[in-house]
């Protein structure tokens, strides 16, 4: 609870924030602080300067366009939960955000923080990977875009270089019937700590076959893991596809070397992947068949 002496600055714009980051080598971004402040309490962070972007309105917008929803990195979980745009276009974002921690944390924690922290128990890295989201990275040379898969590179690691800020996230709006499902296995109680998660996304194309299939597992690898063999198996099937076990069986679980810790053993995590994958696919397929999400 007793932080090291630290400097603090509140920039007035994203440009100023980037300039500050580049002027002070041990500077770090403070957004919602719902992970960072805990790190600082334990005195394990290397930051000596905090650049507080939590009040930058330009990073807190949820914008709707024909193709995408754009969410500013400093948008809080609670703002996502209550966003009409999200509710209409991609409700899984709100449903998943609602599972994070508690009301207090959701009121301050941000989607950008969730992504940049990239703890294997975090909710958004797998979800954004499964949604095919684009991460908008801002640095002194301007805006750059990368896919979520490129962004989440390892345990607590992202592709952000020093001096860069995650400015926003662009999430595609499917133009055809689709399904999104996020299925966590929480240990220690309901929505307490995600030991393993599987997220599934499917779309149904005009001829009635499944496409854009993405199945992503976390808790079993350093980064959100695309279960490509499952995706390939499901791709091109009809909307009535029901051989979930067959699809999941294509994935070579023995290739996984999930970590063992006090929350769950590696073996248990590995065993949970197919269970959650079946459940996630089932939920996503039900939505596709209904043609809408409830």
């Amino acid at each position: 609870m007793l932080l090291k002496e630290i400097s603090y600055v509140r920039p007035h714009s994203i440009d100023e924030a980037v300039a500050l980051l580049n002027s002070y080598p041990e500077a770090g971004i403070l957004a919602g602080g719902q992970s960072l402040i805990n790190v600082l309490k334990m005195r394990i962070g290397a930051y000596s300067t905090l650049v507080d972007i939590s009040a930058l309105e330009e990073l807190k917008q949820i914008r709707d366009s024909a193709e995408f929803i754009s969410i500013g990195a400093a948008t809080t979980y609670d703002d996502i939960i209550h966003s009409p745009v999200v509710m209409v276009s991609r409700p899984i974002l709100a449903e998943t955000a609602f599972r994070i921690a508690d009301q207090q944390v959701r009121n301050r924690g941000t989607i950008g923080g969730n992504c940049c922290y990239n703890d294997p128990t975090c909710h958004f890295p797998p979800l954004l990977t499964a949604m095919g989201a684009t991460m908008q990275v801002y640095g002194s040379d301007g805006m750059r875009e990368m896919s979520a898969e490129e962004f989440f590179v390892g345990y607590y690691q992202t592709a952000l270089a020093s001096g860069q800020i995650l400015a926003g996230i662009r999430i595609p709006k499917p133009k055809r019937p689709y399904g999104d499902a996020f299925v966590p296995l929480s240990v220690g109680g309901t929505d307490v700590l995600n030991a393993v998660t599987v997220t599934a996304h499917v779309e149904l194309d005009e001829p009635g076959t499944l496409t854009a299939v993405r199945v992503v597992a976390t808790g079993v690898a350093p980064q959100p893991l695309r279960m490509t063999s499952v995706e390939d198996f499901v791709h091109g099937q009809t909307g009535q596809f029901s051989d979930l076990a067959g699809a999941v069986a294509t994935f070579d679980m023995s290739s996984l070397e999930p970590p063992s810790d006090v929350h769950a053993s590696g073996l248990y995590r590995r065993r949970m992947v197919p269970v959650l994958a079946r459940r996630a696919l089932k939920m996503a397929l039900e939505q596709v068949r209904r043609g809408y999400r409830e």
Partner: protein
Amino acid sequence: MSNTPSVSRSVAVTVNGTTYQRDVAARTLLVHFLRENLNLTGTHFGCDTGHCGSCTVIANGKLIKSCMMLAVQADGAQIETVEGLAEPDGSLSPLQQAFSDAHALQCGFCTPGLMLASKYLLEHNPNPTEEEIRRGIKGNLCRCTGYVNIVRAIQNIAADSAEKGDLVK
């Protein structure tokens, strides 16, 4: 650059309607600021990881944990703490009374945070289901009550205000 990082700042924080101007170190958590600098010791802390919710306050209308925010971030903020819950004449507010009537507090240590969480919940959802109540207070640990009477207190006040047709203050 107009803005330079500094290890301390002058802040103006309004707590329960009173504005306090103080110099504060950047490393000071809001909960310590409230307790040590302002002597508002009704806001408690019971952990060091943002789990227990004893330090819960409402800042600019949002329910937050004051151990998960720096005091310098509260510059210009409007904060509500437990000390501001009672009626102007000192009598218990309907929410406080509901907690007492239902025996929703034992040691009383988590109670300030739980009342603020309850107040926020009822302001946003005057008629919550049991599930919504439990979700609403999930960020507040209580080790005395098993949460049973806390949930009942919130249910009771929701039912009361529904009867009276008014929103919770």
